[in-house]
């Protein structure tokens, strides 16, 4: 099995979000970047396939040279090789077309991406990629087993989960559940040292459709002050919810 894990370089989940250049750009000042959490669950599952089923695992990311520390982290966790497509990932369609090219040339039969990146939340790369490559596709994937060419996956649905039977070649949009939070690997020193020697190929982008563009950003408006209610006066809370907020 040859696995490609698609990772996105995103602000750490604790980041405060600010915009700059007249609210047209995300302000990266002081922001720590990490592997997108939805992708990291998938990367960790890929490591399991490597250890238990002898899979080869490559990682790919689309971005400028500044994303290389994040790619090296994926190599330190245990991926065998990495590819960086040297282009700003400004649109999901564009990113999916770049990744499709990498998948075609690398002959991968399992592609693991995250359900969405936690920054731009497009949630479209795995689906568009699956459609471009005509591969089977499971989104919001919370469990994946591979047996030969057959795959059994579970996906989260509104109010529960669904078990799906399918086959390779397959692409998934993964999320928490693929592995548990406690299974996530922190790279050790040996892994970090080895990652420095591993192959990181830089590819130039292909011509592709830029279907969307973010023209401007805005922060949510600040909330009014909280109204405190005495713990022994829940009647007052019910009154406020009914008459003021009108939600019950």
């Amino acid at each position, binding site marked *: 099995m040859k696995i490609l894990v698609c990772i996105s370089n995103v602000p750490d*989940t*604790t980041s405060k*979000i600010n*915009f700059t250049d007249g609210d047209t750009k*995300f302000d990266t000042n002081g922001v720590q970047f990490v592997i997108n*959490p*939805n992708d990291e669950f998938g990367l960790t599952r890929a490591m399991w396939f490597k250890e238990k089923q002898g899979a080869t695992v490559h990682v790919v990311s689309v971005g400028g040279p500044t994303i290389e520390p994040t790619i090296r982290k994926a190599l330190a966790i245990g991926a065998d090789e990495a590819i960086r497509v040297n282009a700003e990932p400004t*649109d*999901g369609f564009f990113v999916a077309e770049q990744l499709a090219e990498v998948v075609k040339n690398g002959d991968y039969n399992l592609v693991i991406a995250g359900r969405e990146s936690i*920054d*731009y*939340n*497009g949630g*479209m*790369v*795995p*689906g*568009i990629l*699956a*459609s*471009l490559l005509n591969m*089977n*596709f*499971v*989104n*919001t994937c919370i469990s994946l087993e591979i047996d030969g060419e057959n795959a059994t996956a579970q*996906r*989260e649905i*509104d*109010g*529960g*989960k*669904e*078990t*799906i039977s*399918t086959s390779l070649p397959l692409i998934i949009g993964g*999320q*928490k*559940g693929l592995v548990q939070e406690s299974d996530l690997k922190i790279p050790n020193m040996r892994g970090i040292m080895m990652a420095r020697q591993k192959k990181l190929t830089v590819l130039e982008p292909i011509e592709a*459709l830029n*279907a*969307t563009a*973010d*023209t401007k*950003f*805005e922060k*949510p408006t600040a*909330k009014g002050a*909280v*109204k*405190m209610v*005495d*713990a022994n006066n*829940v009647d007052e809370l*019910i009154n406020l*919810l*009914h008459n003021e*907020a009108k*939600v*019950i």
Partner: protein
Amino acid sequence: MSVLIYTESENGKFKKNAFEVASYAAEVAKQLGTTVTAISINCEENATLGTYGVSKVLQVNNDSLKDFNAKAYANTIIEAAKAEDAKVIITSSSTDAKYLAPLVSASLKAGYTPNVVATPESTSPFIVKRTTFSNKGFAFTEIKTDIKVIAVSNNSYGITENNTTASVEDFSVSLNDTDFSTKSVEVDKVVGKATIADAEIVVSGGRGLKGPENWGMIEELAEVLGAATACSKPVSDLGWRPHGEHVGQTGKPVASNLYIAIGISGAIQHLAGVSSSKTKVVINTDPEAPFFKAADYGIVGDAFEVVPQLIEKLKEFKAQNT
């Protein structure tokens, strides 16, 4: 050309988000000077869409589409879009809709934008407002392609009546085996209970509840309010509650009318995930809990004392107000 919407249904009945998508689309169609056509799969009440501004319903009755299948459903929508020469295709932001929308987008070479919270800022260029950075911000996104696909954020536009008479036409699709190369084997789903995705009220518990054995009162409170239950990330990581209940940046987003957080301190990732909820109530023993700053109403107190009282008083309130 028309605006095409995908209206979701289950067991022959429309889901609530179908009416919200229709209401939203009616306004978009007005901006574009056109009408709304719906594609509806195995639903028995198609004419009701007229109430929300739909002029035409393409109804598909096909046994092979009995279970949701992203690829087969996407191909049905694509065929309808071609037949209608649709330039704007609108879905909800449900898990199923977000599964199939990118497939529609790819096939039609159409730009796609999910989590849209308002009708277009302008239609030429076509710019929509959507949530981004996991609800920590908004983006105004231009879709530059001839055909546009957008997914409307749940509970963002609301349901508005817009009386129209909907003509209902049969629509048949040709599907083949490759459309069904992923097969649903089993669905494990809560029935008869509100889900986080579509609930108007969500009751959520955190580590302050001390253990999974104390969730009885959360469930009882949710039942009194007809609410869905949810939890914070640590609670799902500890295995106290299923992952599907985890709300926040890496879990599910919540966009309910009322969100009640009990024993949740309010980490930035949690606040991001629930920020689209309209009214937030926080019950916490710690007056310094960051969640109070993001709340509309707060009670500093012990959940084990406050919640049982709240349940009793709400039962009385419900008895008087129904």
